[in-house]
């Protein structure tokens, strides 16, 4: 593990068993995440991009020990502690929870309508017993609320008093009040209006620098990821297909899926013709995917080897990896 990696996943797979299948045969599973390896450097804003069914949310949760890790190793090392998530004692798990937190997507569902904002933000402190008195809790709540640009008198109110953007800031405050080192933001701006999105994104960036946090930013929106992340990993159907520093990925995409994703984003210029491919075909069935590369059903460049062997991550250049048999010819 590199010296300044905060959290790393090595060959991580998350499989969910589903009902059905033969009585004595192998139980069918959904391979939500399959054999993913990535490293997140301390202090980075790491983007995880994919569409529905890509497994990005599951991977994020697995790295928080909120989803079961079927195989592989997730390692967390922030200088003070060194945990391997697959075998942690319950004491270690309790400690890990103070160091890694999650910001949810839906600002309307993530806050209990029956608690005041102050109680919502204070809850993690109370559960994890990080403060010893009510005054201390109040102080920390006020501090983080100010950092998230929440008005102090809002603390007395209930969530129904707030707009989507404000609620998301409350959500962020709750995730950050325990001063974690690692934060997973799961589609945290997807439900917000565009004019508010930028505000919340800027807030995240500011806080990251102020508090020295490491973010895993999960999103389906490549344009947002392009502006805020310094490193991006693209997932498709549970597999990692490409990972690179942001500039590099956008200037030099190697995987056909990445290229298609980039070209599919509608541009503001009405005259820009979408040069690259329109993807035809369907996503394979989650329980019974074809052998080989899972993108073959939609890839315009699929050949025999793609239908036989699953491609492994190969290095393209500096920290740029791609999992495609033909990336070199297609460049």
């Amino acid at each position, binding site marked *: 593990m590199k010296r300044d990696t905060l959290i790393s996943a090595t060959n991580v797979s998350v499989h969910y068993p589903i009902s059905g299948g033969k009585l004595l045969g192998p139980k069918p599973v959904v391979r939500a995440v399959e054999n993913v390896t990535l490293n997140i450097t301390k202090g980075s804003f790491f983007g995880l991009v994919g569409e529905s069914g890509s497994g990005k949310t599951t991977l994020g949760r697995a790295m928080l020990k909120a989803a079961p890790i079927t195989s592989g190793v997730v390692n967390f090392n922030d200088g003070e502690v060194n945990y391997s998530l697959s075998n942690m004692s319950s004491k270690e798990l309790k400690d890990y929870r103070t160091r890694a937190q999650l910001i949810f997507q839906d600002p309307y569902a993530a806050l209990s309508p029956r608690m005041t904002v102050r109680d919502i933000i204070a809850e993690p402190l109370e*559960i994890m017993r990080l403060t010893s008195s009510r005054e201390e809790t109040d102080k920390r709540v006020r501090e983080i609320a100010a950092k998230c640009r929440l008005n102090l008198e809002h603390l007395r109110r209930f969530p*129904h008093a707030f707009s989507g953007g404000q609620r998301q800031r409350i959500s962020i405050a709750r995730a950050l009040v325990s001063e974690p080192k690692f934060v997973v933001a799961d589609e945290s701006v997807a439900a917000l209006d565009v004019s508010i999105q930028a505000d919340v994104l800027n807030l995240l960036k500011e806080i990251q620098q102020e508090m020295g946090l490491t973010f895993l930013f999960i999103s389906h929106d490549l344009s947002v990821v392009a502006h805020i992340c310094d490193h991006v990993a693209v997932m498709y159907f549970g597999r990692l297909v490409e990972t690179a520093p942001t500039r590099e990925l956008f200037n030099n995409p190697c995987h056909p899926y990445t290229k298609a994703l980039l070209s599919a984003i509608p541009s503001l210029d009405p005259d820009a013709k979408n040069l690259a491919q329109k993807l035809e075909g369907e996503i394979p069935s989650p329980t019974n995917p074809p052998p080989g590369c899972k993108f073959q059903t939609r890839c315009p460049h699929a050949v025999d080897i793609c239908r036989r062997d699953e491609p492994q991550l190969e290095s393209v250049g500096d920290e740029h990896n791609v999992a495609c048999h033909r990336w070199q010819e297609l460049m």
Partner: protein
Amino acid sequence: MSNITDTSPAADQKLKEAYFTASQGQLIWQRFKRNKSALAGAWVLIILILSGIFSPFLTPYDASIAGRDKDYLNGAPQVPSFCDDNGCSLRPFIYTYERTRSFKTNFRWVSEEKTGLEDRRYVTFFSKGMEYTFLGIKFDRHLYGVDKGQIHIFGTDSTGKDIFSRTLTAVNTSMAVGTIGVLIAFFLALVIGGVSGYYGGKIDSVLQMVTDTVRTIPNIPLFMALAAFVPDTWSSEERFFFISLVLGLIGWTTLARRIRTHLLSERNQEYVLAAQLCGASPSHVIRRHLLPSFTSYIIVDLVISFPYMILSETALSFIGLGLKDPVNSLGVMLQNVTSADVLLNYQWYFIPVIFFIVLVLAFVFVGDGLRDAADPYADTNK
């Protein structure tokens, strides 16, 4: 163009702040108050319950055999009037009856009304009457009475008991039975439904099977069986508690199912997950999130359970398996109505039925109003 409301900015701001800092409970109460039928139902309910509680004061006579009027059996309702052929009076009055039996009446005892001026009996208020104990203290004042003899505004039954007095005590008894039954059912439902909904999985499946089994047992034969086990030597009070217990033991299934459903959906809320991601213990989750979330729904469910309890008890007592004299409930009062005599001649026996229809309807209106007010979808801010 939009209308600008005419409140000063400061008052407006105060209203808004009140809305922002209002808890769920307060919001629900506000919404409930706006529902006119529910509010009317609530008032009716309060009045009926209070009349039941204060029935010894409100009614002139004891509802049991001790208070009967030997001279006025199966008597028609005596409605006080202010005026008659002999002139008007400020005080309402009723007439004297004389019981006669003669060849003319086929030797049946018949009460004849005497309408002379001297036969008037004036209604008195806050009059002294039979003694009763209320909250351990002996009183003897009643709301109304009559200067000579007795007054029966709803008439009397075959033994001379005043139907009005019996009606109010019946309301009280039925409410008491209902309350105990609901409490027992609620406790059982909370435990079983709660464990089922919180843990899910196999525990849930097993408990659901148990619940469904109990639910499919036909109620009347079960009651009959249980009631048959009640020894005759038990006092009516013991019988009363037993019947309430039985009702609770049978009635928990619907409530348990509801609690389980609430918990299953609440358990998957994102804010619960957020708490669990901090390592929240089950008791924290239950205390802080799950219990408050379904308090409003459970209150609705409880209110709606009441009418069912009351009606079940009525049915039981009516067929003779429930309460018996001297404990008095609607079912007990209706035990004697199935003879042709009553149906043809003594229709006032059915007056209590109206009271009960009103009581059940009031519960239903209030329950519906509460459920509408607690509707979570009414408050999304999108």
